[in-house]
């Protein structure tokens, strides 16, 4: 079986997500070869210092994903609050102010679906703690095009509903604790296929 090389890592989370990301993102090595895209639900009106908050402890740069900006290898791009984050066929970001999806903007589903459309089997999608069902449809889209889906073990998630909803669709390639997830990501992205 041939393995499609991975080209992007997309991460979705909601309630409890900042803590989970504080575990996951600093574990990525400084030579991490892929762009990373993070979508997290925030209550609207929250301060937009998210990249600075997530930068703590990370060796990789954390920046807000701006429209028209190309995705950069080894860079963690964080979705701006109150906009959906999409990816254009030329691998640049596009923002959308369309209606909320799953009562969320940004919606994890839309970013994951968009990544699957652009990169097909080159997508590694990770869904973490959260209290809604956002992300499940996106994981299905990633899986349908041959990408890899990793879901946080709901038993270890601060809010289990979101990972549980994704697992219920049957698309998870791995169900794991946070520290195990980082191991899987590093081995998939930094060693095997590259």
């Amino acid at each position, binding site marked *: 079986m041939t393995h499609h090389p991975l080209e992007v890592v997309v991460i979705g989370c909601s309630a409890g997500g900042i803590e989970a990301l504080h575990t996951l993102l600093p574990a990525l090595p400084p030579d991490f070869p892929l762009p990373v895209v993070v979508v997290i639900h925030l209550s609207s009106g929250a301060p937009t210092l998210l990249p600075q908050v997530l930068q703590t402890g990370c060796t990789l740069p954390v920046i807000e994903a*701006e*429209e028209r900006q190309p995705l950069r290898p080894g860079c963690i791009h964080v979705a701006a609050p*109150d*906009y959906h984050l999409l990816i254009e066929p030329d691998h640049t970001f596009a923002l*959308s102010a369309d*209606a909320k999806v799953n009562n969320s903007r940004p919606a994890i589903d*839309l970013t994951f679906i968009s990544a699957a*459309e652009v990169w*097909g089997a080159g997508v590694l999608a990770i869904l973490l703690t959260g209290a809604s069902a956002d992300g499940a449809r996106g994981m299905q889209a990633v899986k*349908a095009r041959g990408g890899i889906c990793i879901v946080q073990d709901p038993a270890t998630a601060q809010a289990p509903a979101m990972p549980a909803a994704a697992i219920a669709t049957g698309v998870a390639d791995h169900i794991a604790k946070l520290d195990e997830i980082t191991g899987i990501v590093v081995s998939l992205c930094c060693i095997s296929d590259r």
Partner: protein
Amino acid sequence: MDKSDIETIEIDLFVEAMARRHGYDFRHYAKASLRRRVAGMLDALGCTTVAEMLPLILHQPELLPSILSNLSVPVTEMFRDPPVFKALRTEVIPVLATYPRLNIWQAGCATGEEAYSLAILLAETGLLERSQIYATDINDAALAKAEEGIYPAEIITKYAESHRLAGGSLDLQSYFSMAYGFGKIDPAIRAHVSFAHHNLVADGVFCEVNMIVCRNVMIYFDTLLQNRVLDLFGQSLVRNGFLCLGSRENVAFAAAGRQFATVNKILRIYKKTGGEA
């Protein structure tokens, strides 16, 4: 080739059909959002694939308005991003107050909420009597709603908080006549707003304006089209005229952006300088 690859082809065919059959050119729209919106209207048209929409586009012109209204999904609210309206009040209105007559263009007005927000801001700062707001969109169904100026009471209640945060002096409800769970915009506000069909992709300058408000419209365009629109805005604005964009938009990616100087970087308020594009 999987379903997603095929849909990519179908979207191209859709764009071709809209341009050649109806003269609406979506070639320079950002692809990801366009695809989402086209795929999103399948159910409404009773289609399972985008290809099934093509005969409807080609042979049932009466469906055009509903297709257009699905393509430019109107998402708007009153006093969205209150800090922007507060900055307009404190940083922009004092300059606008020096003009004896004011023309304001709100491009991409959808169902009118933002145009009426601007009119209310002008009323509260004493400028409405000398002002005319031209609010434009390509979506005729949305324009018809905007013309009516009728919104559900519970939404107006929600907007009232934004209005207050934006520095509004009166209760927002006082600008509406409330009945049967709806509010209709005050005729004194309504009289200063003109709604019209205008397509930023194809149409030109229609008057000289002192301020343009165009928020979260250009994010749906590619760089080439953004450049065209910024040029159009530059030609429409008086020297030192203001341009107000959405909170994550900027003029840096397009060459035509060079004719604008930053007034408020965080809130994306710019002004036209004397220089050429």
